[in-house]
C-alpha cells in the first residue's frame, strides 16, 4: 500500500484557518497533524515532508502581522524550519502564514503592510500564475480566481526595483491581475530559490470545491465533470510534487 506523506500544520494563538487547511491537505492525500507552536520541537518534523502555516491573526497581529509568531518560533525551535527546508522539506504559508514566512526570512525580502485602501478586504481576485513549474502551481492555469481576506496584504520592498526583480527572476510566482491592495508589482505570492517555500495572500483552502465559487455556473474547464475548485489544484500540485521527490 502506498504510504501517504506527512504534513504538519503549525498553529499559533490566533490561527483560525487550520481546520479548512487541514481538510484541504487531507483531501489531496496528506496525513496532517496540527501542532501547536508551544509543542513544536525539531523531533516533531522528523519524517515530515510539508510544513504549513495557515491563515488567521497570530498573536492578534500585534506589533505587525506575523512578527510575534516569528519571534516565538525562533525562540522555540531556532533555525529548525530553515534546516527543514535545506533538507528538502516543503513550506507553504497562506495569508498570515505568508506574513510569518516573510518575517522568518524564508522568502525573498519583503514586508506585508496595510492595504492602500486602509481597510480589511474580503473579495475574490483574479491571479496570474507566473511560475507554472512551481511545485505549488503546476496544475493551475495561467489565470484563475481565489478569495482574499486581509488587512495587511500589501507586499512592499525596500526599493520598488527589488519587487520588479522578483517578477523578472520568477520569485513573484503569483501576481494579482489588477491592483487589489497596492502590492508592489501586484505581487500576491512569493517563492524562494529552491521553489519549495511558497507564500501567498489569497486562500486556496476556501476554494476546494466548485460550489465554493460565487458563480453557480463556474467550472474549472477540465474534462470529466470535475467538481474541484482552483484551490484543490494548488494542493494537488503540491501533493504530486512531494510524492514524486524522494525524501
Amino acid at each position, binding site marked *: 500500500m502506498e504510504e501517504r506523506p506527512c504534513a504538519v500544520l503549525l498553529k499559533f494563538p490566533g490561527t483560525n484557518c487550520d481546520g479548512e487547511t487541514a481538510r484541504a491537505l487531507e483531501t489531496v492525500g496528506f496525513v496532517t497533524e496540527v501542532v501547536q507552536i508551544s509543542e513544536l520541537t525539531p523531533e516533531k518534523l522528523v519524517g515530515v515532508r510539508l510544513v504549513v502555516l495557515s491563515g488567521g491573526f497570530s498573536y492578534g497581529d500585534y506589533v505587525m502581522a506575523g512578527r*510575534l509568531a516569528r*519571534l516565538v518560533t525562533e*525562540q522555540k525551535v531556532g533555525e529548525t524550519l530553515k534546516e527543514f527546508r535545506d533538507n528538502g522539506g516543503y513550506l507553504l504559508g497562506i495569508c498570515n502564514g505568508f506574513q510569518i514566512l516573510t518575517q522568518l526570512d524564508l522568502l525573498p*525580502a519583503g514586508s506585508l*503592510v496595510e492595504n492602500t485602501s486602509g481597510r480589511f478586504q474580503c473579495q475574490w481576485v483574479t491571479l496570474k500564475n507566473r511560475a507554472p513549474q512551481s511545485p505549488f502551481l503546476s496544475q493551475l492555469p495561467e489565470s484563475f480566481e481565489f478569495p482574499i481576506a486581509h488587512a495587511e496584504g500589501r507586499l512592499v520592498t525596500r526599493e520598488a526595483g527589488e519587487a520588479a526583480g522578483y517578477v523578472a527572476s520568477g520569485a513573484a510566482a503569483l501576481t494579482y491581475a489588477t491592483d487589489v491592495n497596492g502590492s508592489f508589482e501586484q505581487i500576491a505570492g512569493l517563492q524562494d530559490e529552491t521553489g519549495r517555500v511558497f507564500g501567498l495572500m489569497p486562500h486556496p483552502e476556501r476554494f476546494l470545491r466548485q460550489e465554493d465559487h460565487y458563480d453557480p455556473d463556474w467550472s474549472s474547464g477540465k474534462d470529466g465533470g470535475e467538481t474541484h475548485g482552483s484551490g484543490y489544484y494548488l494542493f494537488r500540485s503540491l501533493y504530486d510534487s512531494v510524492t514524486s521527490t524522494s525524501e
Partner: protein
Amino acid sequence: MREFFEISDRFIEAADANELLYEPLGSGVTTRRTRRYEVEFEGGKTALDAFIRKTLFDEISQDFSEGDEAALEGFSFVVEYGMKPGALDLEKEAILTYYRGITDPGFELKDLKIRQRLYVFDAEAKDSDRFIRDICNGAIHNWNVIQGS
C-alpha cells in the same frame, strides 16, 4: 532609566481624517498614525536597543526614531492615547511574554507603555476635541494632545 521610541510606517500615506470621524470635518484634513513605546529598564542600553529593533521594528517598511520628540513634522496637533493603567493591554502582554522567554536579555524590563499617536494635519487646534470624542474610549484609554508649533 527611561527611553522613548517611536515607529512610523514608511509606505502608508496620510489618510483622509473624515474616515475617523462620525461627522465630516471638511476637506483637506489628513492623519497619520505612529506607535510610541515608553520603556523603563535597568541594565544594558545596547541590549535594550537590540531588543526593541528586533521585536518592534521592521527595517523594510518602517522608520525608527528615538527620544521624546515627535517623529513627524508639520502637524496641527497630535492625539496620543493608550490603555489606562490597570486596563488589560494585550499587545503589551504579548511583548512581555516574549521578553520573559528570552534567556539573559542583557537588561531588565521594568515597565512598558504603548501609545498610539494620531498626527492630524491641516486642522484647527480646537478640532482635537472631535478626534478625542470619536477615537478615544474613556473607559479604557487615557490621552493627551500635543499642539503643533
